[in-house]
């Protein structure tokens, strides 16, 4: 799905931690649970995906489209925004349980 984001379009590499299942994001030199730490992988996504999967540092990894914003990258698809934040119906279980407006970022 193409994005209408112009120069702010980025590609992120995401997956799950193998042992815990936690959602993780590629930071350039490792993996983070927080999408704010994610970096644009540009054209290196497929190579990174293969490298990190082979090294067992990530499971079920895939590349997504996102938009760069001052607050950090925002995935193009709602499914990935929910993955990044947590279930919208349980704010207490999200990555930002203290932020009452966190859910609006998803929608």
């Amino acid at each position: 799905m193409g994005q209408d984001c112009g120069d702010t379009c980025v590609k992120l590499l995401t997956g799950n931690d193998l042992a815990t299942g936690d959602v993780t994001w590629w930071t350039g030199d490792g993996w983070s649970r927080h999408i704010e730490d994610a970096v644009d992988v540009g054209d290196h996504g497929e190579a990174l995906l293969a490298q990190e999967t082979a090294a067992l540092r990530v499971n079920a990894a895939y590349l997504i489209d996102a938009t760069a914003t001052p607050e950090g990258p925002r995935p193009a698809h709602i499914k990935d925004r929910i993955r990044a934040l947590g279930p919208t119906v349980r704010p207490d279980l999200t990555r930002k349980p203290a932020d009452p407006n966190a859910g609006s970022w998803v929608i």
Partner: protein
Amino acid sequence: MYQYDKYDQSIVDARVDEFREQTARRISGALTEDQFKPLRLKNGLYLQLHAYMLRVAIPYGTMSGRQMRMLGHIARKYDRGYGHFTTRQNIQYNWIKLEEAPDILADLATVEMHAIQTSGESIRNLSSDQYAGAAADEVCDPRPWAELIRQATTFHPEFSYLPRKFKIAVTAAEEDRAAIRLHDIGLKLVKNDAGELGFEVYIGGGMGRTPFVAPLIRSFLPADNLFSYCAAALRVWNRWARRDNIHKQRIKILVHDLGTEEFTRQVEAEWQEILPLGTDVPRVELDRIAEYFAPPPFESELSDNVDRSDPDFAVWLDQNVAAHKAPGYAIVNISLKPIGGIPGDVSADQIELIADIAEQHSFDELRATHAQNIVLPHVRKDRLYAIWQVLRDAGLAEPNLDLISDIIACPGLDYCSLANARSIPVAQKIATRFADLGRQRELGELKLKISGCINACGHHHAGHIGILGVDRKGTENYQLLLGGSGAEDASLGSITGPGFSEDGVVDAIEKATNVYMRERAEGERFLDTYRRIGMAPFKEAIYG
């Protein structure tokens, strides 16, 4: 209820050991994800949006207080303090760590539970009537037959690598509380004119992308031939199933493509081949199993009178308590649908409380329902008020059984990697819009079911009102269906027209209920009125 013998326990324990080794090999890298995925799925372990999800089997929805308490223990120790009861009478946990999954299975095995065949291309957890053994309208308790099929098919090599998942339901009552005609095989126990026990056999029902109501394949199958006949149907399916196309692999597609008559002919022919082989389970084994389902020692000469002087209790009594076949007893439905809550979710504390009540007041028995509620099947009427007070204080006494706020909803896009749209927020908004209990009761029986994708885990095809969440160019959109039923008058809902936003679908439902209130005849439910007047007045109100 059924208790494991040494064989049951040994195979479950062996499976735990096997999965522990497989998990270790995956974490070490000895197995790739492609190699490991079918192994974890054979143990109910999925990888979902936020973590691994474990689906635990509750055979035909029946469990003891001890087993229920274990479900609470798992929620507290390994998850985030809650579990989610599903439309297959199972429970699933959303925040499981792979490295802890073998320990969870080991804990489950200590109370005769497991996660075997809760996913993958296998015969899934059998479902049944949540009122089994207590219902006033049943010819007998259907669960011994469900247990028999469970035992006969668990790890059965012929049924371990099926073309696709396979779902069986068994009931024995006039009222269909298990949606049998929306299963791959639906079995209804009946008695023939000679008083002999047998099954009406329905094959080829299902929801999902291509929904069908199962046709009647055999009007009377002698009860002793249950296994061989099911095996014949599975063999015919195994022979012809479209393994080349995932969307056409279910038996419903085969029944539809062959036609009911030809499919029936092939099953009957196959059955005649199997019958002489003597594969049916001996009656003595069924009798052994049935002993575990003997009625509990009901007390006699109990009063049927209940003090209704507390008006809130009286409403709950009328709405959530059903007739029991034993005088002085009742069936209690515990709603897991508080207004604005998450359908089917229950906290570890609530799980343990329900386990306590079951042990003290329901002969240590509980049932999970396909409508994502819990049933205490055998409760003395003179204890109802005390039980209601405890449930009320724990947020478990919403008096909304079968009303518009008793919504079935799949986890949807909040948790599920297959979903296209969120289901739970829609359910919460509808329940909140119709929160007024007087209004709900005025609307009467109205089964509302929501799925977040075409796979239909939320049974939207079978809702009097159904909602299907779809992805429209990256935005959630909701199609509205009217006229479905999963009961003995089974039918599939029809789409009203163009879809809606999240708020728009709530408005549309309110308009539909307004049409019903305006047009209904004496004694008609929403579904009855829809069937009588058709879609047109509803469409006009919704889109006009």
